[in-house]
């Protein structure tokens, strides 16, 4: 292991983490729950167990990770409900991570998304965890990435739902393989989103509420035109624009087909691996930025040096790498503070 570990943890702890990871990979419900609790646990003396667990699942991300985004009221929850039911009909296991955007200064949060999932979507093949965005106002909670790592080690499909406000999209593409944008017709959001440059990220568009008729058709046409003109994440591929109605279950099968096609496309071109590597690097950089700021991260050298350091060992978890690089930054900062240290910068 290239990443230097200062606190290797007890043998028993590591063994327990490995066992738990095995149970997660076998799809055991209680293990998934326990593992999600563990990655959310911020007690210092539980840190090693957490890292060991994430390392152990790092190479087992078999499930497809899908981000679902769009403005409030676009029908994301209803669409998720329909997608979950549709995937269950195809006998796929599904995980849903619902990130609640409302952060309160009290730390409290009401996680209400579960409510909209119908009973038919609550069977043994569906796992649902809601997370508060906590201090990451408008963005993803820090624990989103690790939680997805756990869920995708266990389940065929994992969804994460975010509100389309900009910041969360930029972050969500680092943790998903495919991003779906849900648009509601005639809300004027499309133009807003085009202006905000958010439309360059999604791999698939779903214009919801097709029962509204002409407005929906028009919105889809506008969207297609906008995509032809605009910047795209993948210049070789124009993202499909599908229409349907999540409420009435229309267009859901086509959307699931679209998701599967995109997965196959990524695999055929080797893009899936590249995206995950890129996402991993960005998550590590982002976490280091949050913790140490630009000044701290600069202690690791140039952007290229940082990239080399991060990619040196792709097998360890994001968090382990953040820890390892963080310690290097801390050492550099300590040396800098001691002026008579001859090794100082």
């Amino acid at each position, binding site marked *: 292991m290239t990443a230097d570990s200062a606190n290797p943890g007890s043998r028993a702890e590591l063994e327990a983490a490995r066992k738990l990871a095995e149970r997660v990979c076998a799809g055991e419900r209680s293990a998934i*729950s326990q593992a999600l609790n563990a990655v*959310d646990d*911020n007690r210092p003396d539980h840190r090693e167990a957490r890292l060991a667990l994430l390392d152990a699942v790092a190479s087992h991300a078999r499930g497809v990770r899908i981000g679902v985004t769009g403005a409030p009221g676009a029908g994301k929850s209803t669409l998720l409900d329909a997608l979950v039911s549709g995937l269950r009909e195809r006998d796929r296991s599904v995980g849903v991570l619902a990130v609640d955007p*409302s952060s*309160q*200064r009290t730390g409290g949060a009401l*996680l209400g998304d579960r409510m909209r999932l119908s*009973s038919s979507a609550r069977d043994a093949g569906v796992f649902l965890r809601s997370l508060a965005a906590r201090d990451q106002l408008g963005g993803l909670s820090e624990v989103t990435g690790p939680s997805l790592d756990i869920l995708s080690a266990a389940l065929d499909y994992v969804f994460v739902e975010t509100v389309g406000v900009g910041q969360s999209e930029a972050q969500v593409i680092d943790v998903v393989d495919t991003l779906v944008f849900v648009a509601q017709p005639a809300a004027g959001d499309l133009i807003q989103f085009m202006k905000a440059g958010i439309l360059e990220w999604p791999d698939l568009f779903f214009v919801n509420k097709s029962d509204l008729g002409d407005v929906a058709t028009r919105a889809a046409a506008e969207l297609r035109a906008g995509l032809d003109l605009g910047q795209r994440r993948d210049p070789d591929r124009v993202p499909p624009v599908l229409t349907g109605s999540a409420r009435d279950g229309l267009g859901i099968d086509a959307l699931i087909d679209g998701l599967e096609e995109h997965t196959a496309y990524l695999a055929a071109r080797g893009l899936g691996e590249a995206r995950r590597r890129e996402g991993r690097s960005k998550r590590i950089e982002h976490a280091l930025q949050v913790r140490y700021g630009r000044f701290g991260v600069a202690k690791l050298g140039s952007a290229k040096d940082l990239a080399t350091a991060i990619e040196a060992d792709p097998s360890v978890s994001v968090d382990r790498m953040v820890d390892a690089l963080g310690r290097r930054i801390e050492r550099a900062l300590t040396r800098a503070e001691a002026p008579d240290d001859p090794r100082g910068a």
Partner: protein
Amino acid sequence: MSSIDSRPERDRPWMFRTYSGHSSAKASNALYRSNLAKGQTGLSVAFDLPTQTGYDSDHPLSRGEVGKVGVPICHIDDMQVLFDEIPLEKMNTSMTINATAAWLLSLYIATAERQGTDQSALRGTTQNDIITEYLSRGTFVFPPEASMRLTSEIVSYTVDHVPNWNPMNVCSYHLQEAGATPVQEIAYSMANAISILDVVRAMPEVDDETLSRVFGRISFFLNAGIRFVEEMCKCRAMNQLWEEIGRDRYGITNEKMLRLRYGVQVNSLGLTEAQPENNIIRIALEALGVTLSKRARARSLQLPAWNEALGLPRPWDQQLSLRTQQILAYETDLLEYGDLFDGSHVVEAKTAALLEEARAELQSVLDMGGAVTAVENAYMKQKLVESQTERLRAIESGEMTVVGVNEYIEAVDSPLVEEGAGSILKVDESAEREQIASLEAFRNRRNAADAAAALKNLEDVIKNGGNIMAPSIAAAKAGVTTGEWSQILRDVFGEYRAPTGVVAAPVAEASEDVNQVRKRVDALSETLGRRLKILVGKPGLDGHSNGAEQIAVKARDVGMEVVYDGIRLTPQEIVQSAQDEGVHVIGLSILSGSHGVLVTDVVEQLKDAGMGTIPVVVGGIIPDDDAEKLEAAGVRRVYTPKDFDLTRIMDEIVDVVAESNDG
């Protein structure tokens, strides 16, 4: 001086009713007959939750709920027993039924025919108001569009075939129970009526003359709270607004059709578990509020029993409520005068103020697309949750006085509830078993081929867009059951889960007490390694979600992460949520009296899933000896209506979680 002989002519009193029904059709029939013998002048049928939500008594979700909050009606023979020796041609029957209204009305019509009475002679009311169910009471089943269709088809059927029937009783009662202010009660009930009238007006078979008759048959069901002067003004304001809507929106000119007709059930929200005898006075004053002004007098009145907050009332308790009405109508001089308040500046000013605000609030609902939109986007629900939160805050802080609860607590023990007084009715636990046995016997004796054919016909008609009433009446006669009828509709329309309205509730200004609890939540979260997380849910079929919502909002305000799972959950779903979400504690709320079976189930299943260490707390209408049983079964705390201080409840939940995570 006036002598007995020279007394002025008295108005005819309003109709006296008592909302009742329990255990079985037979037991409820006996109760109805005894109430009628005591001078009650109409019937008000309470159905149990499986009947209200379209399940037969032997469905898994019915477990523990059969006969609890009302009578179970699975088929025509049940209905026939319910009205045995009660001639329907003379009776005026109100049925609090919504999602399955078309079905229960069909059973009623079929039963009348068995008695030899034609449907055209029937008088009564089906509540048939789904909007309120989405907002508050929770016994909806189908999505809004399908529900609107069902309601409007009942309206268009009855207006021609059962002309004296009130097909829809717009129910603002539950809005006030959910915390609605008088302005909200007026505005939302009007928006609600408009949403149905607009659908009916658009039906091809409905011409102007029919629309006028439909308008005249829509009735309202209001709540009357303890602020009885304001409540009286609310009724006067509604009279005026309804007439305006009729004239301006629907072009109704017939004066008779424009008159607002409404019944009242007085407030249960304000009835207290502490010093429960005080409720006798509260109920009388609330009754006065809706009878005092002749112009705004209720057409029918239902009074709750003084001990409702303790459990199911006994016949004696209901008798006391009936006597209250009789004293008001027959002993006092109330019915000897014209309107006492015409020309009163005070009353007119208050009425005008309510009207103005209500018009504005109604307009904002209409502007966003009407009541259905305001349900789907949770606007009305959020407003209600906000009002309720504010009300509870005012009680907690002492700004609002509730005698015996937050003031004047010092009291001698009430002889009415002392040990051995047996102050509530216990539903015989064998009622469910007997009902299931009788249902099985019915299924065996009916002609299965007839029932299947009737169901097939029902399905065809619904799918082809025909009116649901005729095939439903045929199905009732053919021996179809409540569960079978509903399943066809569930298959065609789908099931709906309504938004909870809690997510957007604003964080309340924190009091000193709240800050104390927040600090404890923060500290415990540190120890736990992640933020204290609570699951709030309602097992069973009871949809009264106000209490659970307030607990959810309060838990958020003291800094917990709250998973609010909403209503109608099986114990298994609750256990699965608790596991998926990784919660530290589970809070269950049940008001239907089925806590015994459901809560014990949750606790047992948690143990089986290896989650026995997750503490469970329960809130609801739970008699003391039941609370002891629940605690013996492993429940950590039991809260009842007398525990109004939500902050203290939160403080105790912190204790419970701390204890469970020790060591």
